[in-house]
């Protein structure tokens, strides 16, 4: 398995309290702390671990987004990726970019870079789509291993343990394949100062979606973005009879 392509997305940091813009067109991102999507950190860690086990030779980190996406590529390089690819999308178009666009971009890159494995985070914490890995596999017509809890290399290909409702499922697949990382796959490493300094020298290539022959024109229109309705306060009742009465009163029973 020579080359591993890892997708990394720049998202609002998980610890930030997200606020909806007053004009309801989206959420506030200006001046807000952004980081690498946590599941993508796990994906990068897995790819770097494969390299350390000598099961992969090169790890390429790719991010699709505006100029600031380069920040998360640099973080991936500091964690051990060998080189980066930034597919630059203008900010306005990025607002409406969907997994269908990203999956076509990643698929093209996987073929261009002759990747043997594509590892993505299972979902991004901003859209919670959980679609890109699956769609990328479909575009490539490659097998997919999603919600990975464990990845093992065998002579025949890969043995993957997946998290599913009710437990774990083990599947075998050939390579090349597309995998998505779930929470318990590994614990991502910190980037130490020496690695951060080294990362500055690693190559970072910039391309456009057009270079890759992918059309990123919007397929959706955002009508409005709103806060969820404010939760009504609950009421306490004295006893079960009162509860039943209240439920009947409300037409619930």
């Amino acid at each position, binding site marked *: 398995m020579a080359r591993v392509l890892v997708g990394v997305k720049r998202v609002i*940091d*998980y*610890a930030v309290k997200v606020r909806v813009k007053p004009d309801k067109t989206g959420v506030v991102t200006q*001046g807000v*702390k*952004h*980081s*690498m999507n*946590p599941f993508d*950190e*796990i994906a990068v860690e897995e790819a770097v671990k494969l390299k350390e086990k000598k099961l992969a030779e090169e790890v390429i980190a790719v991010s699709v987004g505006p100029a*600031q996406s*380069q*920040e*998360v590529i*640099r*973080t991936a390089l*500091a*964690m051990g990726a060998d080189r980066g690819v930034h597919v630059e999308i203008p900010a306005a178009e990025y607002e409406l970019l969907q997994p269908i666009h990203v999956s076509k971009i990643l698929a093209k890159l996987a073929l261009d870079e002759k990747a043997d494995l594509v590892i993505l985070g299972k979902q991004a914490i901003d859209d919670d789509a959980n679609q890109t890995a699956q769609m990328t596999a479909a575009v490539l017509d490659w097998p997919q291993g999603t919600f990975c809890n464990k990845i093992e290399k065998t002579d025949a290909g890969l043995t993957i343990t997946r998290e599913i409702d009710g437990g774990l499922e083990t599947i075998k697949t050939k390579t090349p394949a597309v995998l998505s990382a779930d*929470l318990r796959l590994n614990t*991502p*490493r*910190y*980037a*130490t*100062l*020496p690695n*951060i*300094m080294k*990362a*500055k020298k690693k190559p970072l290539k910039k391309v456009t979606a057009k270079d890759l022959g992918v059309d990123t024109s919007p397929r959706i229109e955002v009508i409005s973005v709103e806060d969820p309705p404010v939760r009504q306060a609950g009421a306490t009742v004295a006893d079960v009879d009162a509860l039943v009465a209240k439920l009947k009163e409300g037409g619930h029973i």
Partner: protein
Amino acid sequence: MGRIALLNRLMSQKTTTRNLFQFGKVKGDTGKYEQIVSTGQVSPERFVPEEIEKPAYYFKNMPPGNTLGSPEIKTQDQIDAMRLSGRLAARILRECGKLATVGITTDQIDAFAHERILESKAYPSPLRYAGFPKSICTSINNIACHGIPDDRQLADGDIINIDVTVFLNGYHGDCSKTFRVGDVDERGGFLVEATKSCLDQCISLCGPGVEFNEIGKFIDRYCDEHDLASIAAFIGHGIGSYFHGPPEILHYYNEIPGKMQPGMTFTIEPILSLGGAEIAVLQDGWTAISLDGARSAQFEHTILITETGTEILTRDQ
């Protein structure tokens, strides 16, 4: 998850001291202290006489040393030389500590250290190392490490880490301590004591055949117990005729393989914080500041692994 976030600032180095105002309120550190929000004036480079033996980087700007690879096993002669460097570094550090009182500037401490090191026929290792402009590092309150001495006066209640490294007879010795200035509050005092104890305990678990990662595993447990965070970006390092070399000493939980062997010399230098573990590097390219404004403390020793245990080369003697 999310621990690695915000290294983008390290990457882009676009952070100016003015941006610090957006970092705003202190979350983790509820103590009373002056939060550093800007760097001061750095004085011109100090002169080093011809007859002082200087490291190669004095003459040619070089990147920081490579800390990957096999750690050096030192010969008896090298160990003897390291003992002398370590002892000198410890002595200079002790003298600097006495100077750390209200009103003195970090530049004045730097001037003193510079002169004392030259008097001892040694060279102050930080000077011109990867472009560092001064002879010691001085890091106050919410500055994690690599602070550049400047014209700021020490204030009552400050905690200041002074990091001294000397180059004597071709070998470096590296140590640091966090000192209290005037009346330090309870949280600050706790932080300083806890960090010192952390280093002491890390050293006591070292010895021939011990895995390097035991240090990181210990610090991880220690931080959990004391509700502190270890600033992961900064590592301990091998040291000898070079300032920084293998092995890498990670101050966080890790499973990186590698064992200590007699003859190895390296530093352990945990930076523990009352708040989070994330830092950013300022525009001067060196000063590491905590993102949440919380204070951190650091203690460092250069140690030698012996046949039976360890020898602290930079101990107070």
